């Protein structure tokens, strides 16, 4: 399957005129996405939208306003988490008194796919995958199956998550975030925890090779706490799909959390020390569907045939990029490999 258009909303200048040279700094351990102005959304609707929904509409709507898609397939771990906790707070603070339903209706994770279909009157296939660090990967697999079932169709596929003050709080209590870390020295840290991030990356995907931005050759997604098993499956993935590792880039989800560095390193070694390693979480922070940003970055690398120096983990002499292999893991449990080529 082939990627044709994409829009990426992130904490960096990735939407509209792309500038990946200058990096916006994180603040208090968070990287907040830069939101575009939303056109084509009724004001009453806009006022009630959470940031996750606004980002989803901002990335998705321009792609499907002109082009008819045969399905809207979204991956989001949390959807409108801020609304969810606002409603939760009302329940407790008002001791289950009579509440207004607006936050409740907006809090469902399928609000993004639902609003996109509502605004465009799209009554086709509509799905919301919420399985944390595999939510976007499942959205891609869903699209892949849809294209196998009906080859002449096309789909909007996206990954979105927001930082809400509340899920940040819960994840920080659980030890996933360290608010003293910043994106300027993310990878030199030897302590657990990372910085929080958010964003929305959306893609129009179909079977047409002509003028495509990239081809997704393979996706593998699974859960495991056993690093040796992850490495074995990565090796198997490489031998199954990737016969040629010349002109190949490896995008790693390394996030500065010392606990996960060995896992990323073992996959780097498995692919071979001659392959340049690119990292991206100093631009995005960590969030469950950050692999959607990584896929956008892979398309960017294939289109430009280079990336700014700050992305590279080591010195490299890569002058031609024909394929990109992504490895991302979330909270040490969820792992995915994606192979993208020109």
């Amino acid at each position, binding site marked *: 399957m082939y990627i044709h258009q994409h829009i990426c909303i992130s904490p960096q200048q990735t939407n509209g005129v792309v500038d990946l040279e200058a990096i916006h700094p994180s603040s208090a351990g968070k990287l907040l996405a830069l939101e575009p102005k939303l056109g084509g959304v009724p004001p009453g609707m806009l006022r009630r939208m959470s940031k996750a929904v606004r980002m989803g509409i901002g990335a998705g709507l321009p792609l499907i306003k002109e082009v008819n898609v045969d399905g809207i397939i979204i991956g989001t*771990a*949390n*959807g409108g988490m801020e609304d*969810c*906790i606002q*409603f*939760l*707070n009302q*329940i*407790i603070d008002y*001791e*289950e008194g*009579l*509440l*207004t*339903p607006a936050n*409740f*209706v907006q*809090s*469902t994770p*399928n*609000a993004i*796919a*639902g*609003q996109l*279909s*509502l605004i*465009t009157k*799209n*009554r*086709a*296939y*509509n*799905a*919301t*995958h*919420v*399985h*944390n660090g*595999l*939510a976007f990967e*499942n959205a891609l*697999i869903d699209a*892949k*199956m849809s294209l*196998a*079932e009906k080859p002449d169709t096309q789909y909007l596929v996206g990954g979105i998550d927001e930082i809400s003050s*509340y899920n940040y*709080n*819960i*994840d920080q*209590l*659980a030890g996933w975030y360290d608010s003293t870390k910043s994106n300027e020295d993310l990878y030199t840290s030897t302590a657990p925890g990372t910085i929080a991030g958010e964003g929305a990356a959306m893609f129009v995907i179909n079977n047409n090779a002509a003028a495509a931005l990239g081809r997704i050759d393979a996706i593998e*997604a*699974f*859960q495991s706490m056993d690093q040796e098993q992850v490495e074995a*499956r990565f090796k198997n993935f490489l031998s199954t799909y990737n016969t040629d590792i010349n002109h190949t880039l490896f995008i790693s989800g390394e996030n500065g959390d010392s606990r996960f560095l060995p896992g990323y390193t073992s996959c780097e070694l498995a692919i071979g020390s001659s392959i340049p390693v690119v990292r991206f979480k100093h631009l995005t922070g960590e969030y469950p569907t950050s692999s959607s940003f990584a896929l956008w970055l892979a398309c960017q690398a294939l289109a430009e045939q280079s990336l700014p120096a700050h992305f590279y983990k080591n010195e490299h002499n890569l002058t031609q990029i024909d394929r990109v292999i992504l490895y991302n893991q979330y*909270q040490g*449990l*969820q792992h995915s490999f994606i192979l993208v080529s020109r």
Partner: protein
Amino acid sequence: MSRIVVTGIGIITAIGETADENRDSLIHAKTGIGKARFFNSRYTGQLPFGEINQSTELLAEKLGIENNIATRTDLLALHAAKQAIIDANLSKEDLSGNDTALIGGSTVGGMCLTDEMYADANAAGISNSPYLTSYSNSANTSFLQRYFNVGGLVNTFNTACSSSANAIMYGARLLKNGLAKKVIAGGVDSLSKYTVNGFNALMILADEPCRPFDSERKGLNLGEGAAFLVLEREEDASGKRVYAEVRGYGNSNDAFHPSSTSVEGEGPYLSMKRALEVAGLSPEEINFVNAHGTATENNDETESAAMLRLFGTPPDFASTKSYTGHTLGAAGAIEAVYSIISLQHQEVYPSLHFTQAITATGLSPITTYKQKNLQHIMSNSFGFGGNCTSLIFSKM
């Protein structure tokens, strides 16, 4: 193209903790809706619920879960998934294989712990809460993955009240597309202050046992439960007991309103129509519809309108939500199990508390138990956000 078959079923609801117990209640028109004993909310005494008659502690004890990190949602999911896995005779090696997938669906997830989540979301400093990774709506699927060491693809749907119907659809498609050889698919939800207050704020909770498709219906009752199916390709299931075929599935978005269905039931109509297309069946070949039938003003009328439009004269139909209450993300899987046991025993179960048809549509559900020749049953699940999914199960 391979046929996708059901080789294991597992279920727990307010009307029983096995498929046999559920069937017994359905045959004898025994509802599970009544006064809740374990759910703790301001509304516990005021509203009827389809509560599972066991404390969370007892559920944990019976499943041999000793630590206190499993939520009620996790435990209900484990109860049903374990039954289905044993029923389909899946071995440890089967479960850990890279081609065994686990697909769940849930709306509440770990938010059954409303008060705990409130405390943690607003806590300052250090927390000793055991639930920090339990709140998400995918936490219960990860709990099952770790418990059973499932080796293949793992996913959770949240398309509101059609979540587990989409999980079953996705699971069947993974098998058809060769992306898995065995799939455990289903869903779970437990009673939660979160959903009770949400539906209460929308003013669609009835203060009496719900009356699906009745002209005087007053809204829905919330319930809880879980159901899982084991799905395999027919050629991989030889020698196994096969309950039914997953013959068709259709999904559409109504694209009308975040929390109500369009008057003409466009989304429901399209999901049913697409399910027929995938199944290669004409409308008159459907022998029975397990309706979404929540007993809200909006759903029952729009679902009726969609059935009239699709079928002309609709086949027999009923809503089992008059037994279980609306189990939200679990409803699609629970009603899939009911459709499957209907096919297995060639019988249909009555809708409860119905007296008079809705004037605009004039459709009446069946109100008495009967034996009937059944080849194909359609099961509908429609949710907030416009998400509509229909499944078709067929006798082998």
